[in-house]
Structure formats: C-alpha cells, structure tokens
C-alpha cells in the first residue's frame, strides 16, 4: 500500500494485487485446458447440432414411427426415444453388457429432459430438435432415464429404464 502521490497512468495495482491477478489468470487457463483435453482428447462430450424434425409429424415418419432399439452389430446399438407428456416411448430398453448405445431423443410436445442415471448422458430434449449422445454400458444392471425438465403436471412420473443384461444375447 504505497501512498505515492504521483498521478498514475496505469491501474496503480499494488504488488499483491498484481500477483493475485496473474495467479487468477493462470488458474482459469488451466481449467480451460483441462476441459479441452477432457472434451476433445478423451471424448467426454456434450450434445451438438444434430438434426431438425417437425414436432407435429415426427411420430408418424421413420425412424420415429417405430421408436426403440436397433442392433447395428458388433455391440453397437442405436436407440430412438420419443418423449411426450408424460412418458418415454419406449420406456424399457434391454441391451447386453458391453453394448455401446447411441441415443436419439426428441419430443412431440413440450421440452423434456433425458438424464440416464449413473452415466454421462444428460440432455435437454426440445421439440423440433434431435438430441444425441453415446454411452457404453460396462456394468450390468438397471439404469433409469428420468425427465429432468418441467413438462407439465405429470412430470414427476416420467421415466424409463435401460436394462443391461450380464449375459450377451438379450436385445
């Protein structure tokens, strides 16, 4: 805290202040680098720009006219899930352990959420848009997907489940 009377051009930050600013900047850059590595090198990703649909007719045309699981072979699966007040179609999906499932989720009415418990899948579901994320199921068990966006009076009841079977074969 030097009380130098000279009029300053700069900020007049004292040495502690200057050090604090440098440490702050370094810290924030370190955070940024970490999420970058996690996102782009380790594939820990968020949903992006997938495709658009017409919410009024989406349930009538393929693939959404037949929501559910498609087996692509080699343990790869695709799941089309329709969300509507207040249920998911389908509300049960069964895959073998080790399966890699890409979820495509959209809505026929209002916004919903799609949070698959105990995984890194958590998506906003928006009418007119398709939300997409991929997950690998390494552990057998039941994984619930629950709606975590307010969608109306019955919202608290809206959920479904992925059943991951220990033995290969079920689908």
């Amino acid at each position, binding site marked *: 805290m030097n009380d130098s009377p000279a009029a300053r051009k700069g900020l007049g930050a004292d040495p502690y*202040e200057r050090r604090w600013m440098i440490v702050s900047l370094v810290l*924030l850059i370190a955070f940024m680098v970490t999420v970058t590595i996690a996102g782009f090198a380790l594939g820990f990703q*968020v949903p992006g*720009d997938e495709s658009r649909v017409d919410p009024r007719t989406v349930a009538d045309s393929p693939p959404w006219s037949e929501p559910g699981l498609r087996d692509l072979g080699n343990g790869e699966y695709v799941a089309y899930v329709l969300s509507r007040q207040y249920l998911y179609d389908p509300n049960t999906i069964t895959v073998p352990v080790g399966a890699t499932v890409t979820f495509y989720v959209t809505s026929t009415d209002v916004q919903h959420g799609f949070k698959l418990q105990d995984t*890194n899948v958590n998506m906003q579901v928006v009418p007119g848009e398709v939300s997409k994320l991929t997950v690998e199921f390494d552990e057998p068990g039941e994984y619930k997907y629950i709606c975590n966006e307010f*969608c109306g009076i019955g919202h608290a*009841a809206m959920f479904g489940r992925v059943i991951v079977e220990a033995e290969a074969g079920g689908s």
Partner: protein
Amino acid sequence: MVLRERTDYEVTREDRRFVGAHLFVAIVALSVGSLFGPLQAFEWSGLDLYGLLEPIGLGDYYKGLTIHGVLNALVWTTFFITGFLTIVIIKGLGRPLRYPKLNRIGFWTMVIGLVMAAIPILMGAATVLYTFYPPLEASWAFYLGLTLVVVGSWIEGYGFYFTMAEWRKDNPGTRSPFIVLAALITMVMWQIATLGVAVEILTMLLPAALGITAGTDPELGRTFFWFTGHPLVYFWLLPAYVSWYGMLPAQAGGKLFSDSLARLAFWLFLLLSIPVGFHHQFVDPGIPIGWKYVHAALTYGVAFPSLLTLFTVVASLEYAARKRGGKGLLGWIRALPWGNPVVSAQLLAGILFMFGGIGGITNASYNVNLVVHNTAWIPGHFHLTVASAVTLSFFGVSYWLIPYVTGKPLWTTRWASFVNWTWFIGMLIFSNAMHVLGLLGAPRRTPLGEAPYVPEEWSGHLFRMSVGGAILFVGVVAFVVVAARTAFQKSRFAEGEGVEFPIAESIHDPQDTPEWLDRFKPWIIGTIVLVALAYGPQLIEQIGNAAYNSPLISP
C-alpha cells in the same frame, strides 16, 4: 486530499418515499414467494402440505414453484435493485434526479406489469415457471406483464443516465463517484442483456399466445432467453457488489482498497457477462459444439473480475480490521464489527458466495456440466448466489436503508443478527444437501415425494434439505418482521440522530484513477462488438432456419 462526494446533500422526502415504495414491493414479493420454499423442500422429502392450500387455490406444486421463482428471483430482486440504485445515484452525485417524473413512470410501469403477470399466475393460466420455456403455454397477460416490468426498469435506468449527464456537465474533469459508475454500468448491462428476452416475448411468445402465429421455435426461444438469463444473474449480483466495494469498507471502519481495480472489475462484468449464455445450453441440441466451447472460454473470462472482487473486498476488510486492532494472518477477521448486522449480513453473504463461486465454475465447465445440468445441484447453487450472496446482502442493506428512508431506527440489532445467522446456517444445510442430491442424480423442478424412481439412498439428504428449508423459513419470516416493525413503528430518530449514508472512501484519490476507467463509450462499443462476435453467427443461423412449428401446449 481524497475527493469527497457531496454526502451532505439532503434527500428529499418524496425521494425517500419513492425508494421506500420500491423496498415495500420487493419485501412483499419476497415474503409471498418464500412461503413456497419450505413447502417445496418438505414435498421433496415426502411431507406434502399442498392439500392444505387446495381450498385457497394454491394446491398445485408448479403454480407454487412459478410464484416462488417469479416473485423471488425476478420481483424481489428487480424492485430492490431499482430502489437501491436510485438512492445510490441521488446520494452519490449529491443531486436530485434530473426528471423525477420519468422515474415515477418507470416504477409504476413495473407495478402494473407485476399485477398483470400475477393475475394469470394465480388463476393457473401461467404455470410455466420463471423460465417460461416454449412451447409451454401461458396467458398473453403473463408475457405482457413481464415485458412491462422490464420496460419499467429500463425507464428508471434512462432517468439515471439523464441525471448523470447533467452531473458531468457541471463537473468536467472530475472522476465520477465509484458507486454511481457501478450503478450505471449495472443498468447499461441490464439494458443490453434484456434485449434477448424482449425479442423472445415480442416475436415468438406473445404472437403465439394471442393466436397470431401458429407456434414457436423452442430452441431459438432458449437462445434468446439465455442471452438474458446469464447476465440476469449479474444484474442481481452487481448491486450487491456496489455495497461490498462501495459501502461495506466504510461500514467496517476502513476504506476501499483500490478504486481503479473496482472500476475495472465492473467494466469487465459489462464486457463479459452477456456473451456467455450458451453455458446454460451446453446439453441442448441444435447448438454446435464449437459455439458452446467459445462461451465456455468466455465464462472463465467472467470469473476473472469475480476473483478481482474477492481480492479487493477481502483486502478492504483486512485494512479495516487492522485499523481496528486486528492481528494475525487470519486473526484480523475477528476484529471486524460482527455485532453490526449490516456488516455481518454482507460478510456471511460473502462466505456463502465463495462456495457458490466454486460451484459456479463447476457448472460452467463445459462437459462437467453434463453431470449437474437440471439436477438438484442447480437450485442448490443459486440459493447460494441469488438467494444468499444477493438476498442476504440486500438484507444487510435494508437494515440501514429502511431506517434511512423512513427516519426510524432499526428494530432491532439483535433480531437482525438473528436473521443473518439463521439464514447462514439454514443455507449451509439446505444447499449442501441439494448439491449432494444433484450429484446423486436427483432432478430439479420435480416434487420428488411423488416420483416413482427415488432410491433409498437419497432420503437422508432429502430430510436434511427440508430441515435446512425450515430454518431458512424462520430466517425469512424474521426478516420480514424486522423490516415491517422498523418501517411501521411509531418512534422516530431523535433530533441529530439518524443513519449516515455509507460511502467508502478509496485509499487512493479517485482522481488518480486513469481516465479510461471513467468513460462509457469505448466499453459499450467493446461490449456490443464482443456480443456480436460471440452470438451473431449462431443467432443468424438459428433465425435463418427458424421453424415456428411447435404450437403452445398447456402444462
């Protein structure tokens, strides 16, 4: 040596009443809005009291949650802030408002808007929560009412600008007082930021609600909403910072550590609080990953002025404490005037905000956001920020501002301290439980008491949450009692007594602050350019591809 603001200017009786009217509406809103807080917490843990409210038409959890969000997050804050900033402008500049009528018009516009939005909410015709995401349907009166609240706040802001322009003419070459500059930056930021929600309502929601258009584009609506939604949190926070930087040092017996860094922090908030809105849409479809990433980086940028604030506020407090005889590396903290509820409210708010800030960096961290998006973590987080850093600081401001505008002494120091500590303890319990629940996957905006998927593992935390909620409720009731008994008591300050308007002097003469930290134009241009770069391309893309094919649907 140090420039003195004209603190001797006597605020007129009309202006005191005008500010008081803001506080009145704000506190009424808080007391009604907060009624639902504990009910929500209890419902989550399986104690459903909404049946009791059925006879008065409030039996719907979501109607209650809409009221809670709108009244607490939008009305309590906006009215308190406009009132507080009005007195900051008047006292800071030491002159009356240039066009008092204009500010009166702004205030009454806000009141009319509030009534207009409240009626459909109470009738159950706007059960869309305070985010009103399309295509959830609300009555046109709700959208128009909210618009009027925002427009009213703009008008009050124009009144501030005219007053400032007049002051500048009379005081060429003088640095503007810090609190005034900070208040004006807050308003400028707000006026740029609210363009998003204004466009959303006027081009999408209102026409659809009136049946002029057939539907909405929900993702475009979200982009408009969050253009406003993130800076909204800085609109809440910056007035609290005005008090932390510009008043708390004086209240604690010290000085502002650095006038120029305080100004720099505010300018950085103006620059960076808007072009970060996609961090609320990290898990949205329809937004390319690249843009999400840009906003993630800028969000770390806006954390920088927050860290500056942490330093300057703590340094100012340490300076005050050492002047009061405080010693030791951390021992000085005890020397702060904890017995003064105005101070302790802000200190406790600051402590809760440090937890909130850490959580905020987590939320903002791009892919880490996947873990917490729309879980109980999020309300856990913003009860630390808007409902603590901001609300508890505003409690602290109320303890001197209500006496200041009414001429009546605080009823009482002891009860006010009780409010602060109750809120602090209740919030520690409540928000900790909600953060844990969020990590375990519990969704927000969900009456978990009736959800079929709640695992046993959550129940202990749900119970803690309702205990915290009950304690908070005691705190808010005590606050309303303190405010009401102070304002409506018979006794007045005796001659020569009263509250002084707190303005912290800076350790350095503000006249030494570089001129570029006291000029609006370059910063506003910079803000517009940065917003255009960060939002322009994606907005053009979304507007170009807009499909208004999502009809409104009642919740």
